[in-house]
């Protein structure tokens, strides 16, 4: 058999496409199949829709700031809009705070010589929603919608960074402990046990007291605590089931080094699960940020938690629905975004874990 026929045979048996294209196609097909599973569960789609909505808000903010919104008025941190209203001074209980003002309040806050029946021009902050401020202004005269949209970016950054750190650490450690076992395994698993048992929030609160925590530090902290904690345990359990599969044996027999086997054969099979836990980490990170800034333990200038903290500091919390625009937008935004990532995570759970699919 000469050289050319040999070439011919191998040409016929081997696909003509380059390898990367085949891999891409397989991946695409896998994605399509998983997407079908994902779509089957409407809960995941709801979550995805909410995330998309907030993503659009995030993108829209800088565009609005540079076109329609005047930075002097609409800046989320230092903006100020002087809105004034005319109110009549009355004695006793007021029925409408936009038109009447109690005489005692008027004397203390505005004009000591105020009389019943006078018309005063006062600052209207926090102003209710109007055409200029779709969600009203906060007690310092800043636009609530602008704050809400501006904070979205930092929430996404925080959540995704914490999630990436968590997943990176958890996957590496999970895979390595499962692959090697022994002392490394014992050490990391006991560490994870310790971190799981201890409540997250008190530790972050004390850390907030000891150090000046900024958003990036918080993201790293949550990422590291999450990565060495519960997520590792779950990923390691998965890695153990992958480790005994024949293709790992095959890779080792073919002469793959330990690192090669871990990172090209073990880790890719842990990725779906890791992705799922990313979603839950995002929820946890956004929640922790909101709680810490609500308690004033974070060194950042604007976030959803700060918006609620301001409303609390200024005493608007128990006003019920009257000052709804101070509490509801930020409170709901936190709930919605956390819920959204959680729902996507749950839907992914059903994709990753075949036992949970519909009968």
């Amino acid at each position: 058999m000469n050289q050319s026929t040999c070439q011919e045979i191998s040409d016929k048996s081997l696909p003509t496409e380059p390898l990367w294209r085949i891999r891409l196609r397989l991946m695409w097909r896998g994605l399509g199949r998983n997407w079908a599973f994902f779509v089957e569960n409407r809960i995941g789609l709801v979550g995805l829709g909410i995330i998309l909505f907030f993503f659009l808000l995030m993108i829209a903010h800088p565009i609005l700031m540079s076109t329609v919104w005047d930075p002097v008025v609409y800046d989320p941190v230092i903006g100020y809009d002087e809105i004034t209203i005319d109110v009549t001074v009355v004695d006793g209980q007021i029925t409408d705070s936009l038109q009447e003002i109690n005489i005692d309040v008027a004397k203390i806050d505005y004009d000591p010589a105020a009389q019943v029946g006078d018309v005063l021009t006062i600052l209207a902050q926090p102003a209710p929603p109007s055409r200029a401020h779709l969600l009203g202004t906060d007690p310092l005269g800043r636009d609530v919608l602008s704050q809400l949209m501006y904070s979205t970016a930092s929430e996404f950054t925080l959540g995704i960074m914490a999630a990436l750190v968590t997943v990176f650490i958890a996957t590496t450690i999970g895979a390595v402990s499962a692959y090697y076992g022994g002392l490394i395994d014992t050490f990391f698993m006991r560490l994870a046990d310790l971190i799981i048992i201890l409540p997250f929030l008190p530790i972050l609160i004390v850390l907030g007291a000891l150090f000046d925590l900024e958003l990036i530090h918080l993201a790293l902290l949550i990422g590291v605590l999450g990565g060495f904690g519960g997520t590792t345990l779950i990923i390691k359990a998965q890695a153990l089931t992958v480790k005994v599969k024949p293709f790992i044996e095959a890779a080792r027999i073919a002469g793959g080094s330990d690192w090669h086997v871990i990172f090209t054969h073990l880790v890719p099979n842990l990725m779906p699960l890791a992705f799922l836990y990313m979603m839950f980490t995002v929820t946890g990170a956004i929640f922790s940020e909101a709680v810490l800034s609500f308690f004033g333990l974070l060194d950042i200038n604007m976030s959803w938690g700060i918006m609620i903290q301001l409303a609390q500091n200024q005493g608007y919390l128990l006003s019920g629905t009257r000052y709804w625009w101070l509490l509801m937008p930020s409170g709901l935004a936190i709930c919605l975004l956390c819920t959204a990532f959680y729902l996507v995570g749950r839907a992914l759970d059903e994709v990753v874990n075949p036992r949970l699919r519909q009968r």
Partner: protein
Amino acid sequence: MTGFILRRTAQIVLTLVVFQTLLFFLLQAQPGGIQYQFIGNPDIPPEAQQLIIERLGLDQPLEKQYLNYLKNFLTGNLGFSFVHYPRPVMDIIAERAPRTILLFLTATVVSFYTGFFLGRILAWQRGGLVEYGVTLGGSFLYTVFTPWFGLVMIWIFAFKLDWLPVGKFLNPLKWQDAPVRANVVFGHMLLTALVLSLLLFILYLVTHKIGQWKDPIRRVGITGFLLVTVGVWAASGLGGYALDIAGHLVLPTLTITLTAFASTMLLTRNSMLETLREDYILTARAKGLSERVVRDRHAARNALLPVVTSLVLNLAAVISGGIITETIFSWPGMGLTLLQAAQQKDIPLAMGALTFVGVLALIAHLVVDVLYAFLDPRIRYH
């Protein structure tokens, strides 16, 4: 079983030492070191600074300081609070810990049962509107911003409807001429809860093997225990005060329960769905057992195991939620103490509170572990 408990206890003690070690290095790692907390004020003259450092042993080598720290921790000496000086931290913890423990125990038990009960039903309602509704609602409550949710709860139940007290753990007007301090009543309430749950546990153990008469006997027993408890409290003359505290306990417990039950519920659902595929469920159905019996006796019993494991994760969540809830409801327990100490930079008290939280979490973990070994005999022989 005894060996298992001993082994677990030893592990927990070891974990506690590791935790304390981490705290120690955390203190050392803060900007300026630990001495900054004591001599950070520039108004303190240098000689006085030197004196403070010497007196606190901060000039000694690190390993000696560390051993001192551990020794102090083991002998219950957690230093003095900055804000409440000269009260020792341990004193403050002893005063406030029962309030947190009561809230924590009630919330854990109630949220676990609610979650397990609802999850069991949820698994049976696959694909229906109920499933979507409860899952969405549960996820929302699970991820809801707890401070905000607590305030909404106060606004609805204490302000608008005026059913429950707004905050604090007792009504001062009622306690003006109380014969004992509130903490005594608190201690007795905790003791009652403990004795009652122990009695119920024994009742379940004793009636475990009885066949047909099991349910009526249990019902009579539970009613009897509850009646005796109510009777004893009424006779002691402190019943009214206990009722006042219990009334203040309702809203915080409700808030923690609502934010914490969802994870148990969703996990029970998943666990039930996995159990339902087992052959013995098919057997049970083939035998013609009613759906309720299959669900409660055959599926739920086995689905309970992974849920109990997750209780460990939930414990930490309940403690975290408890801190927020205590703050929102001005419940003067350890959570509020921890937060206030952190905000006022009262580092010894904050560290003491964190130690308490850690010890509470570890002990709760131990209890759950033992419970788990009790439920699942396979664990004991590992």
